[in-house]
């Protein structure tokens, strides 16, 4: 019996670059396209609790992020995008602000505590004060 923490868990650095289709350029390009389309983009998994926490963080701040649930992607590339993201960043969820990569939960939290997240959000037009 294998416990598939990769599918449900979020921060699993061990799965980095284990997949064969990690560097599929089409997939990576799709990710980039989606990320740039909105001020705040979160790639998430619907059953993941850590993803839930990150989504809540932004929503509680008054930000309205664009969320892509990779396990609910109607086009079958969701799975591949998940693998690609884990290969590149190491974990799900992954957050983009203003088209630029912020990172996984660790990075997002660190940014917020150090005070750099709010300026990023304001610059991207996701947050007004």
């Amino acid at each position: 019996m294998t416990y598939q923490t990769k599918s449900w868990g979020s921060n699993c650095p061990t799965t980095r670059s284990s997949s064969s289709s990690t560097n599929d350029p089409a997939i990576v390009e799709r990710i980039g396209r989606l990320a740039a389309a909105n001020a705040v983009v979160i790639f998430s998994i619907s059953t993941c609790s850590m993803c839930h926490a990150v989504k809540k963080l932004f929503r509680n701040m008054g930000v309205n992020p664009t969320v892509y649930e990779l396990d609910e992607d109607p086009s079958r590339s969701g799975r591949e995008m998940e693998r690609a993201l884990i290969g590149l960043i190491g974990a799900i969820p992954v957050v983009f602000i203003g088209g630029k990569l912020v990172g996984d939960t660790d990075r997002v939290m660190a940014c917020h505590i150090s005070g750099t997240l709010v300026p990023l959000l304001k610059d991207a037009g996701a947050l007004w004060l």
Partner: protein
Amino acid sequence: MQSFKAIAANSDMYCHSPFYLRADESIRNQTRFADLGELELSAAGFHHDTNAVDLSRSSIYNNLHFGGLPAELGTAGAEVETGQQYMLHKATTVVIGGGAMGNGNFENWGDSALAENSQRTESSTDIDTDDKNQSRGVQDGALVVVDSMDQSKGGTGDQKQTLRRLAQNREAARKSRLRKKVMDFILCSAYVQQLENSRLKLTQLEQELQRARQQGIFIATGSSGDQSVSIGSNGALAFDIDYARWLDEHQRLINDLRSAVNSHMGDNDLRVLVDAVMSHYDEIFRLKGVGAKSDVFHMLSGMWKTPAERCFLWLGGFRSSELLKILGNHLEPLTDQQLMGICNLQQSSQQAEDALSQGMEALQQSLVETLSSNCLGPTGSGNVADYMGQMAIAMGKLATLENFLHQADLLRQQTLQQMHRILTTRQAARALLVISDYMSRLRALSSLWLARPKD
């Protein structure tokens, strides 16, 4: 006319004086064995007859040494009014110990658990043998019913003999019942004593085990190397030990810092001490990470903290937002920029905490759904594969607990670091002292609480 049971010390005494035992209410109340029926009878009305029975008395008292009874019996007898001439302590002997006075009709006490009985039985048999030729009712410690009326009448020998036999039978039955009660009492006492001893021993063993676990692990492994490796398997215990050591070192560093602040040390030197405390904080977060990998539930439970600290526990540690509230006005004076920085830090740590708390709730909810899912089917017939599948999913969800703990610790660490960045060296030193003092007070509160007198 009540039946009196007289017990003769020896043939002489029997002949010369009337010996009565009766269930006198006043006498009964003087004994300590309210539930030992006839035993009261025999213990009551004790009268010291100092003449012919001296020798026998010592043997009687010797015979009475079993359980908790004899001493009390003896004293009970002594307490009683001596107004009447009762050879009662003889009666006691006969009744309980089968005394030196027992005759052949009495049950053999040798089959009882009491060692003395066998002795007494022997001695009684000896006497019995010696006196065999004599009239039973007259010579030995035969229990005889003597009716005062009979005595005064001085009835025929046949009548007396019949009466004596009846009395003997009654006495035998009475003695048998009495013996049973006494045995029950003794066995109960012994059992209770044994239980009590076992309980004490168990408590002692538990304490020893606790001490040994806390101290002895190092000795047992015998290695002077990396203790966390050698302790290894018991992650919770390993962390507890590491944490205790960390706390000691932390106190030492804080004391150094305190004396430095009080002695108005220069900023450069002070910074060294402040950095030392900050690095030491990094160490505990590292240890917590190691602890979480081996036993995440132990870390989350906060059992490694004192009770009062545990009361404020949030995801396996202190709340960052709480920390800043504790600092309150201690950091003044602050520049505007510092003030804004602290306010932002307060807000962002609060938001991050909320987000993680909500994530934890989602995790719990998800786990509930997994465990309560209807994979068994409407008929209730279990599908093992489904069950195992659900369990595997639940296991995966549990694994994310470690993630949350990690995030919470990161939050705590980063809050401290950001605070350090915003404040000057002196302010940071003061802040660290305030935080440390607060934690110490919480721990002291726990100790006081645990040591409080309980009613």
